[in-house]
Each structure stands twice: as structure tokens, then as C-alpha cells.
């Protein structure tokens, strides 16, 4: 009798849980389909190879923004990843360290700061001293955005690893740093990559931090010390314009951004699985 009730409950919970998942996936499906349908028309050869054209002129593209997205986001990932990983590892592997409490608090608080204020921060700290806008300052703003996500994810994942792993390493005579580098971090690869990808996705979609830092550029540029364009900036500006062609390009850019992140996500997960 009891057994039957338990199996019934089990069945019901399975249904609930799958239903909950559906609730998550359905709107996602809607959004993806909408982005795809609205943007696929804009993804032509010109889109990928030409600089932007004024409204009414055909053949405009987003080459500067595409290149800029890569440059800015990769620099941001390097900076944010380094700081975030460092902080996360310190918190998880050296819990006795006095920096831990302030670090955790600070990291979480950073997570709640609106992106536009990150941009202001980078403006004051990088742009003004440099005397001008730069992709680098944009990367700084995005890196600050990424740090809390990476730190949180890294720390939690490392914390979840069984302590025996470290004990085994120490028992073999490995110094602490070796244990962390060669045993712990590889075991937590998956979670760390999740954190990095979440952070990258978040940063790659933000336009507000780039308004006063990377600024945007209608011309192709690879110079990290000068103004540079990025896909979210273009989406932001084009989507609110009155021109159909520009609006379509905005959706195209959104679609491209999503596709890029999908591919990066897939590749990163595959690399980690090995």
C-alpha cells in the first residue's frame, strides 16, 4: 500500500518536473523563433562584410560591429576571467584566508549593479585618464560585469568537490598549489566553463556599458585604444530607429549574437568534456 503511494507520488513529481521544464523552454522557443524570423532576412553577404550604410541606402552591413564584438568581448573575458577565477579559487580553496568574507560580499554586490553604471565606472577610470574612448575601456566595463558571475560559479563548483580529492593529492606529497592546479581545477572544469560562458553571454549582450566607453565606430577598426563598435550597440541604436531596413538589421544582429554564443557554448562544452 505504502509502496504504491510512493510510486504514485514519484510519477506525479516526474510529471511536475517535466512540466516546469516546459514552462522554461516554451517562451524560449517563442523568443528564438521570433528572433530567427525577424533577423534571418538581414543575414546576407553585405551584412557580414560591409560597414553600415545610412537609412535608405541598400547594402549596409555590420562588419565593424562584428569584429568589435570579438575584440571587446575576448579582452573582457581575459580580464574578467582572470580576476573572477582568482577570486573564486581563493574563496574555495583557501577558506581560512582573511580576504574571503569581504571578497564574497563584494562579488555578490557587484552582481547587482546595473550595467550602465559599469560603463560610467570605466568612463571615469579609463576613458578620462586616456583622454578618449577605447575598446579597452569597454572591455574593462564588461569585465567588471563578468567578475561576480565567474567568481560565484567557480567558488560553488569548487566547494562541491569532495574533500578527499584534495586529501589524496596532499597525501601524495603534492604542495597545495599543485593540488589546486592539477587536481581540483580540472575536476571542476565543467562548472567553471559554465560560469565563464554565462558571464560571456551576459556581457556580450549589454549595450549600456559600451555607450561611454567603446563608444561605437562606423568604420572598421582593430585598434583596442580607439573607439570600436559592437553588435549590442548596433542593436540598441537600430532597433529604436524608424527605418524598417535598420530594424531588420537590428534583428539580424541579435540573431547573429545568439548564433555566435550558441556556437561558443557548444565548442566550449565539447572541449571540456574531453
Amino acid at each position, binding site marked *: 500500500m505504502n509502496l504504491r503511494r510512493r510510486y504514485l507520488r514519484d510519477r506525479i513529481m516526474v510529471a511536475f518536473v517535466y512540466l516546469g521544464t516546459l514552462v522554461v523552454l516554451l517562451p524560449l522557443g517563442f523568443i528564438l523563433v521570433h528572433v530567427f524570423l525577424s533577423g534571418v532576412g538581414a543575414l546576407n553577404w553585405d551584412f557580414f562584410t560591409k560597414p*553600415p*550604410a*545610412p*537609412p*535608405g*541606402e541598400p547594402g549596409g552591413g555590420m562588419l565593424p560591429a562584428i569584429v568589435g564584438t570579438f575584440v571587446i568581448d575576448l579582452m573582457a573575458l581575459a580580464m574578467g576571467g582572470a580576476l573572477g577565477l582568482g577570486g573564486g579559487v581563493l574563496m574555495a580553496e583557501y577558506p581560512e584566508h582573511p580576504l574571503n568574507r569581504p571578497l564574497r560580499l563584494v562579488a555578490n554586490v557587484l552582481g547587482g549593479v546595473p550595467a550602465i553604471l559599469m560603463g560610467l565606472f570605466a568612463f571615469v577610470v579609463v*576613458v*578620462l585618464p586616456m*583622454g*578618449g*574612448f577605447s575598446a579597452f575601456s569597454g572591455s574593462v566595463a564588461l569585465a567588471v560585469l563578468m567578475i561576480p558571475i565567474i567568481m560565484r560559479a567557480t567558488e560553488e563548483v569548487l566547494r562541491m568537490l569532495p574533500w578527499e580529492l584534495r586529501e589524496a593529492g596532499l597525501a601524495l606529497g603534492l604542495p597545495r598549489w599543485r593540488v589546486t592546479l592539477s587536481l581540483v581545477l580540472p575536476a571542476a572544469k565543467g562548472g567553471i566553463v559554465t560560469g565563464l560562458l554565462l558571464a560571456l553571454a551576459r556581457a556580450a549582450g549589454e549595450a549600456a556599458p559600451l*555607450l*561611454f566607453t567603446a*563608444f*561605437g*565606430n*562606423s*568604420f*572598421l*577598426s*582593430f585598434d583596442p585604444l580607439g*573607439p570600436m563598435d559592437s553588435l549590442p*550597440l548596433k542593436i540598441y*541604436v537600430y*532597433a*529604436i*530607429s*524608424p*527605418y524598417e531596413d535598420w530594424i531588420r538589421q537590428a534583428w539580424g544582429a541579435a540573431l547573429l549574437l545568439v548564433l555566435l554564443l550558441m556556437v561558443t557554448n557548444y565548442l566550449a562544452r565539447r572541449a571540456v568534456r574531453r
Partner: protein
Amino acid sequence: MLRRFFWLVFLLVPALAAGVTLNGAGATFPYPLYAKYFSAYHKLTGVRVNYQSIGSGGGIRQLYAQTVHFGASDAPLTDEQVEAFERKFGTAVVHVPTALGAVVPIYNLPGLSTPLRFSGPLLADLFLGKVKKWNDPRIAELNPGVKLPPFPVTVVHRSDGSGTTYVWTEYLAKVSQEWRDRVGVGKSVSWPTGLGGKGNEGVAGLVRQTPGAIGYAELVYAVQNKIAYGAVQNRAGKFVLADLATVKAAAAIDDFPADTRVSLTDTPAPDGYPVASFTWILVYRDLDKNRAFKSKAEAKALFDLLWWIVHDGQKLNEALHYAALPEVAVRASEANLRALRYRGEPLE
């Protein structure tokens, strides 16, 4: 390997050839027009002008921070702002008008075949929330013969700060004492009633979806998106529907100021649309005081650019639904541009 080298050179050569790049920031309203200007200018001269629409306030701040060569704003600098520049850098700020725009009242009343007529005070009362239904006698008397439905009036305004709001509220403050006292003029104001939409598209979207809604938007936007907008009675008593001709006519005033810092709302011009406004590019008079300028070549490039904009560039305005500058504004700009200096030397 060789091919990669070729690509690199191919991409770098245009960068090296052009040499001069100018950065500008500011108003979103003229952004499409400036995109056209700078693309055409680049093809003409190879000079690259990188303009980003971060908002008029942003543009003025960047000009003050000297991270850009020029700013752009839908409203002229206030006297305090001019003074701030004077105090910090010892130079005046030259206003160069580039085009005229207009703000129109957009509404959603199905079944009407001609544009509605509004008077200034009526618009103020609508946005104050004092006129609650569309079949109110005050609207009916301005629109004889029009079948007005008994829908409630839903006011839609901008939720974000914008030059469009500035122009609209400036007009309302001029035609309504109550508006002046209760709400005032600004890029963001405390609206007594109504829903807020973000950006022109937010307002237009809300108006489109709400029968009985009234809002305001830039003419360019209303025309591009085929939204119904009304005629507004100007100071001379005429009901004027905004279009390129009536907007340009709004600047036909006596004593056009030499520094071009003029407000055209509630214009005395007899055929002018009463809610029109210039949009300006802002530059330092003494360009060398702006750290963003690294050489006289850049200053000269800016001078040439601005000279071109107020002359040949104007030919591009109307195709994009921006009104071209009237003669009087062009003459004033010529004088102002001739006053620009780099280390004391003129740039012409």
C-alpha cells in the same frame, strides 16, 4: 600566408589613406541624417566622421570632457552651460544648426479620414488630463463636422529623457500658463497623467495599440511609420499640418539671433508649424582648447565638414524628411564658422 597579408594591407590602406578621423556624439533625433551626411562626406573626401547617438545630454557631457571633437543637441545650451564652458576652458561654444525637425501630436481614433485640428491650449489641457473624452466640446468646436467617438483620452508620453519632450513641453509652456506652473519644461518632466513609453517607438507603439490614445513624436518618425498626426494652430491662427515646407517656414522670423540659439516653438511666422526646432552641432570656438584635437589638420577638417553640412549637405535633408536650413540660418552659420580658431588662426 600571402593571402592573409594581402587582407591585412587591404584593410589597413583605407585607414592609412584617410588620415583624419573625427568623433562626435549627441542627439538621437538627427542620427539618421548624420549617418547620411558622414557617409556621403567620407565618399567625397575620405575623412571619417564617427558619430554615435548617446543622447543630447551625453553629447554635451562628452564635449565638456573633451573626448569628442563635436557634440550634437536638440536644445541649445542654457546660459549656465555656456558659462560653465567659458569658465573652465575660456572659450565660447559655437552652435551650428544642421536641420529642422518637428514634434507632432499623434493619436489613435479609428474611422477618421482627415487629420484632427488642435490648438495649443487644447493640447496642454489634454496632456494635463483636463480633457477626458474625445467628444469633448473643446475638441469638437475646432473640428466641425468630424464624428468624434466618446472614447476616454489616454495620454502617452516619453518615459526616457529626450529632446523631443523638451521641445513639446517648451511649446506647451508657451501656450498654457497652467502647464508652465504645474509641469514646466525639460527633457524629463513629472507628467500629471498618462503612460510612459520608451523612445519614439515606445510612444508610437502604445498609441497604436490603444484606441483613444494621444501622444507626441518626431515628424520623421510619424511619417516613416504612417501614424496619424494632427494639425496644430499657430500663433497667427492658422491650423498647420507639419511637413517639410511648414517646418522650414517656422524659422522665418525677424531678428534671427547671430549665435543661432533660438527657440522656434510657438513661432510668430505666419505659415510656420508651431512645434518645430533646430538641431545643432556644438563645437568649441577655440578648437585648440579641446584636447580631442591633435593637430590643425583635424581642426581644418572639422571646419570643412561643418561648412559642407550647412551648404551642400543640406541637399540630403529632405529625402530623409528633415527640413533644410533656411537662408538666414545658413548666413549666420557662415559667420560663426568663420569665427572658429585654432591657436588664434582662422580655418577657412
